[in-house]
């Protein structure tokens, strides 16, 4: 993205401004998906108690002889000492590594993690050089998680925000109950991906298993390969120029843009014959949303 100075921004309309900043205002499906970004707002919310870390202050943890709890406590301790870049070595498939990090941090995990890795996070940028087990990134609120190899099932379950990226293939039920954010998968995904999805976007560059988007309320799923079958109330929708633009930008950001582009992607949305909160009265909608 080309850099934009403050003067240019002030001359632009709101639509031009959000586009220039790489953000977008779009209505994907139905009123409940209407997302509006304020270009003037801070992109990352910081908790008042969040430690003030310096990304240039780097350290390492060798977790070979440590329990998951000890590793997570050590990460918090180092963050309180101002370390903004932490490299975790020898994770060896341990569960629940890097969970509950609620502020900015560069966390690099050299190896593979077990279940529930980097769940419940709000803000950090995480790179995992190996594979992750079930439920990686569960309930993440913001930040980025990039996995270089494959991921297990329930990848990104119930995420609310941020980018969760797997360069390889993922297991079943990817993005189950997701409520926001973006899931990117370089390879294939298994059965029941996007099950009961409520918001957000999932992109699968490879194939998708059976019952894709089963019982989804809202949100959008893009699939570059074949779809074994659609789930209940998941329907095809037209891939618009806005979709293509967003897909290209997002996949390019992580070096995952397919050689043949994104024009062949299928777009799947909720048919809203099963669940439809668009027609609720405003007072009811307030309770739901």
């Amino acid at each position, binding site marked *: 993205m080309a850099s934009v100075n403050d003067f240019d921004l002030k001359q632009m309309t709101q639509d031009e401004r959000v586009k220039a900043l790489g953000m977008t205002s779009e209505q994907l499906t139905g009123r409940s998906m209407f997302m509006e970004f304020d270009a003037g707002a801070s992109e990352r919310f910081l908790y008042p108690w969040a430690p003030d870390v310096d990304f240039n202050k780097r350290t390492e943890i060798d977790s070979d002889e440590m329990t998951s709890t000890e590793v997570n406590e050590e990460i918090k301790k180092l963050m309180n000492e101002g370390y903004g870049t932490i490299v975790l070595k020898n994770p*060896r*498939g*341990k*569960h629940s590594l890097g969970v509950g990090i609620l502020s900015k941090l560069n966390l690099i995990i050299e*190896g*593979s*993690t*077990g*279940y529930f890795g980097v769940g419940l996070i709000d803000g950090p940028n995480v790179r995992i*050089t*190996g*594979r992750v*087990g*079930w439920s990686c990134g569960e309930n993440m609120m913001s930040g980025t998680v990039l996995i270089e*190899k*494959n991921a*297990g*099932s329930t990848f990104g379950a119930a995420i609310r925000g941020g980018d969760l990226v797997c360069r*390889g*293939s*993922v*297991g*079943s*039920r990817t993005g189950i109950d997701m409520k926001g954010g973006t899931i990117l998968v370089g390879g294939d995904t*298994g*059965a*029941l991906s996007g099950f009961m999805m409520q918001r957000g976007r999932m992109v699968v560059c490879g194939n998708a*298993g*059976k019952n894709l988007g089963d019982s989804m309320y809202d949100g959008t799923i893009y699939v570059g390969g074949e779809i074994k079958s659609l789930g209940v109330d998941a329907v095809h929708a037209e891939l618009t120029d806005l979709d293509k633009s967003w897909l290209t930008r997002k996949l390019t950001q992580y070096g995952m843009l397919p050689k043949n582009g994104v024009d062949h992607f299928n777009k799947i949305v909720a048919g809203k014959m099963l669940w439809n909160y668009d027609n609720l009265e405003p007072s009811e909608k307030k309770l739901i949303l």
Partner: protein
Amino acid sequence: MCGIAGLIYKGKQSNVGSQMTSMLQALKHRGPDSTGYAVYSEGIAEEFVMRVKVAEADDMASGRGIYAELERRISKIDEILKENGVSIKDKSNATEYALRYVIKYDGDMGRLANHLEEVQGAEILSIGNGLELIKDLGDATDVSGAYGLQSFNGTHGIGHTRMATESDVDIRSAHPYWAFPYSDVSVVHNGQITNYWIMRREMENKGHRFTSNCDSELLAVYTAHNLSKGMALEDSLRQSIEEIDGVFTYLVATKDQLGMAKDTMAAKPLVLYESTDLIAMASEEVAIRAILPQEIDTYDPYDEEVRVWQA
């Protein structure tokens, strides 16, 4: 929950006993109630290893009289073996209530096993040419140590750490299950089978026997039934996904094969590692990492996936 693990070497032997112990110990948190192993070596032609227990572990706390009772039961087993023309090449006690026989026998194995199980408290855990099946209460290290498994060299093996949900905490309900009465076939399972009683009655009507109320035993009996009809292991695994309801991932080992099957929902985990000479699999990556510390590539099999590997 419950943890399952398996490994198979292609065309070579390794310290399978020690490796399976490490893998299952890493899965202890998935099931601390009991641990079991089915490990395979090339065996000796025409000889079978028979693993039999004559009491449950808890029975040993029932009073001093149990020792005399165990002696009586073991004498009775020896007597039946002799009556059936079985040649006992070796006999040893793994624990006070579990014995290992090396036998030569060319008769009907099912009939022999049925006859032996007429002895009160006796249960044949396995009979096989290459199979050694051990299971007991406790974690992987405890069971492996008690039965001297650490030094076992072989080609492949499967194992299980059990969290009892469907039946009692006892050896009878522990995995692996031997596919009675077919030598060298064993099964471990993680999941719940929801049409267990329907399928059990169907199998019982076909003449098969069940020793426990554990739903996992059905998979062993079902596999045994299919193999007895001449079905290939891969076909049996595939058919099971159609006929057996519930959520499950299970492993089956034969004398020279190891297979896996995953249900239609892919609701129970399995992580796979494949290299040119070793295939390792477990409910969780942490078990594979327990024997392969170097960086490796692993993946999750998908729903309805069936795989079979040859030793």
